[in-house]
């Protein structure tokens, strides 16, 4: 999955907390100060639903799901240059005992630990896994979509072997299986769920829309609609790395400026919705630190290769030469972003910038436009209406592109209109920002660059890419995959469906005593690692 959502996505990608004593000018009034064993986190909105299968696709919800649903396997953590990051090459069992493939890597066997319980007291068993995956297939939404990438399309492919064993039989082997299952293999308490199912609502949608799941790293102790969610560490979690903070309070503070004030005053420990401008100021604020780390979030300009004027590759090249990359990084991101030289994100295995020719060069831009037989072209430039960063970027690109003969009309769109136009593939040029939830080029192709892919806003299709994509399904050797990805990048550099603008760094303002932040490669914070420092 690719998370597209601009600044909000970035902010939510981060996340978490330290149990700090209130500091600053004022003790928080009205609410009890956070105890040393708890953390307070501010988010921009309340989650839309607790049901991960049928609804609930906002970023607050997705982040919470990672922490309250029991994910049977999950990413490990690795140390890179002193920073802790989620290790997408190391998928480890958590609530499960093991998850292992057959020799041909088509059948994966999930063994559950015995004695693991949901909050209801029901034991987590194979029947829960089966019911949960049947539910996901029935929903025809999030998990059902992602399972197709690894050849899981029917409920019958998930079989209960015994009370503690489940088999997943894929249509083909896939190197992506561990990562795909790491984001999909969550389970419901099916015994409890069946109590709330009816003939009209066999999957208890109504119940799960309002009632949090149980049994994850945290249980929801209390949820005050629209205002606050209190998470309590699940002491029954049987696996490695249990939650380090007993209580985490997540409060909804929509206004970024209020999050900043509350962070400075010590009323919250972590602010997940502060603007870039405020973050720059907070770096100098007493009692606050800004955790900064490289991120795989990409900012791109995606051109529709089937819509004029970008149906001509030379026009696409002209735009790629007309974008002021360094100026954007300096002026919009304050230097806090990395230049990117490939549509493959910098920290994704297989990144290769060889042969990527595009830098800011107006003469080359004009020459490319001339090669298209044109001196000027016009197009609209679509971006998210409520995204300040994208707005600034659009203005800068518009200004420089005009010098090369590309006249852009700015078109900010609300979420529903943007979603509809993207689906109709009727956007000639648009700004996107987001990061892949699976850190792998095959997944990137599957979601964004093969024919019919849902995020293929460029409507891009190349027979060689399609062939490589098919080949990659069954290529599990890392070196062989690396060769495929080098070829992919060579083709994409020639076809230029996207202009890759940069990769902004991740920044998270927290109180000074917050520790344990683990940088998520999928943009969704894992709160179990967080702790108040001594």
């Amino acid at each position, binding site marked *: 999955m690719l998370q597209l959502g601009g600044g909000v996505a970035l902010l939510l990608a981060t996340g978490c907390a330290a149990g700090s004593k209130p500091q600053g000018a004022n003790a928080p009034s009205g609410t009890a100060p956070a105890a040393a064993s708890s953390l307070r986190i501010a988010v921009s909105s309340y989650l839309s639903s607790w049901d991960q299968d049928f609804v609930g696709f906002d970023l607050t919800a997705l982040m919470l799901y990672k922490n309250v649903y029991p994910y049977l396997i999950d990413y490990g953590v690795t140390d890179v240059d002193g920073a802790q990051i989620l290790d997408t090459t190391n998928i480890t069992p958590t609530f499960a005992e093991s998850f292992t493939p057959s020799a041909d890597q088509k059948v994966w066997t999930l063994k559950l630990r015995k004695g693991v319980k949901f909050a209801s007291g029901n034991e987590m068993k194979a029947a829960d896994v089966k019911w949960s995956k049947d539910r996901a297939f029935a929903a*025809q939404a999030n998990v059902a979509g992602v399972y197709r990438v690894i050849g899981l399309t029917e409920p019958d492919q998930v079989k209960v072997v015994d009370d503690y064993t489940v088999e997943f039989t894929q249509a083909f082997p896939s190197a992506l299986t561990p990562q795909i299952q790491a984001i999909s293999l969550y389970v419901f308490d099916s015994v409890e769920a069946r109590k709330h199912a009816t003939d009209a609502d066999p999957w208890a949608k109504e119940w799960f829309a309002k009632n949090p799941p149980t049994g994850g790293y945290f249980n929801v102790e209390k949820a005050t609609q629209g205002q606050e969610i209190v998470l309590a560490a699940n002491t029954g979690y049987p696996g490695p790395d249990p939650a380090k903070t007993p209580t985490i309070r997540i409060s909804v503070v929509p206004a970024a400026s*209020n999050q900043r004030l509350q962070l400075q005053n010590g009323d*919250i420990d972590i602010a997940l919705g502060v603007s870039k401008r405020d973050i720059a100021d907070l770096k100098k604020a007493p009692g606050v630190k800004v955790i900064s780390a490289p991120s795989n979030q990409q900012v791109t300009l995606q051109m529709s290769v089937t819509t004029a004027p970008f149906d001509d590759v030379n026009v696409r090249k002209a735009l790629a030469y007309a974008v002021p990359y360094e100026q954007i990084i300096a002026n919009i991101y304050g230097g806090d972003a990395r230049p990117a030289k490939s549509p493959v994100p910098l920290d994704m295995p297989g990144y290769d910038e060889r042969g990527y020719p595009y830098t800011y060069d107006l003469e080359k831009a004009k020459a490319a436009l001339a090669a298209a037989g044109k001196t000027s072209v016009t197009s609209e430039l679509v971006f998210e209406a409520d995204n300040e960063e994208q707005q600034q970027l659009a203005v800068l690109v518009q200004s420089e592109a005009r010098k090369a003969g590309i006249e852009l009309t700015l078109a900010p769109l609300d979420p*529903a209109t943007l979603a509809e136009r993207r689906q109709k593939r009727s956007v000639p040029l648009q700004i996107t920002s987001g990061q892949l939830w699976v850190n792998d080029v095959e997944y990137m192709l599957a979601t964004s660059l093969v024919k019919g892919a849902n995020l293929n806003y460029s409507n891009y299709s190349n027979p060689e890419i399609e062939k490589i994509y098919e080949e990659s399904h069954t290529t599990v050797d890392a070196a062989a995959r690396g060769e495929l990805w080098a070829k992919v990048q060579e083709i994409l550099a020639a076809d230029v469906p996207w202009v890759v603008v940069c990769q902004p760094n991740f920044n998270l303002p927290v109180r000074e005593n917050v520790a344990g932040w683990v940088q998520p490669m999928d943009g969704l914070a894992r709160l179990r690692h967080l702790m108040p420092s001594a």
Partner: protein
Amino acid sequence: MRIVRFVVRRLLQLIPVLLGVVVLTFLLVRVLPGDPIRTILGPNATPEDAAAARARYGLDQPIVKQFLDYLGGLVTGDLGTSIQSGTSVGAEIGLRIGPTFELVVLALAVALVVAVLLGVWSARHADRAGDHGVRLTALVGNSMPEFWLGLVLILVGYSVLGWFPAPSGRVDPDTNLTPLTGADLLDAALTLNGPAFGSALAHLILPVATLSIVVVAPLLRSVRASALEVLHSEPYVAATAHGLRGRTLLRGYLLRATLARLPSLAALVFGTSIGSTVLVEYVFSWQGFGQWALRGLLYRDYPVVQASVLVIAFCYVVVFLIADVAQAVLDPRVQI
């Protein structure tokens, strides 16, 4: 009896008005560009997945059938299911309307009291320094955008002075307030929860002040103008010439005549206040009706948009009805 007949007649008129609102909203929200389904599906969802989701919400049906189903639901009190949250729209309104109503009603009450006191005082001290000061202050308050004013009050009241709680909700969740109406102050009073009452009151002060400051100017100007008119009217001048006491003049001759015009203006201001709550709720993390309706509109959550417009229309009609009755009581010349 006349008033009762008037109220009944106006309530009956509600039916065609609301029916018109229902039809218009149902059609207009579907004319707007935007897909309500795509935002609840994952990025890997296929057109078939989207079609299945559309079918779940009945959006695959002919528009006439969709409308008849919606109308049938309304008759039975079912406002539909939110596409974004998957929960009952009626239940969501129940959670959201109380906080917003509390905010608007209190803000309007404060604004009315301030407008009457200062408006009459200004008129009685017309063209003096105090009068100019009051009018100028009201004008400045009216000119300030509510979100900016809210942020300034937060900066001063919470961050600098530390007198008010953090703007992160309506009541401290640790007070364990049992929600009854959704209006936290009222619920705290009804459940005799002292800590929750104090917390809700503390959380209300800044947003109520913001909204009151924004809406008080037109009320104040109206009261002042009416009071000046009364002060220069023959009956009032005659009463003054007869040497009546100040209190008698104020209560018997000035106040009632001055306030006669106020109800209809207050009803209009009530409508403005509902609109203003969208920003005030955002700034103060209020999670009320305004933010809920706005999100519904942004994501084309059809049942939410339809229900929110219907509720607002209903409120308008009822508030104007109350205003008309109040005006009739205050001004005997008004025939109803």
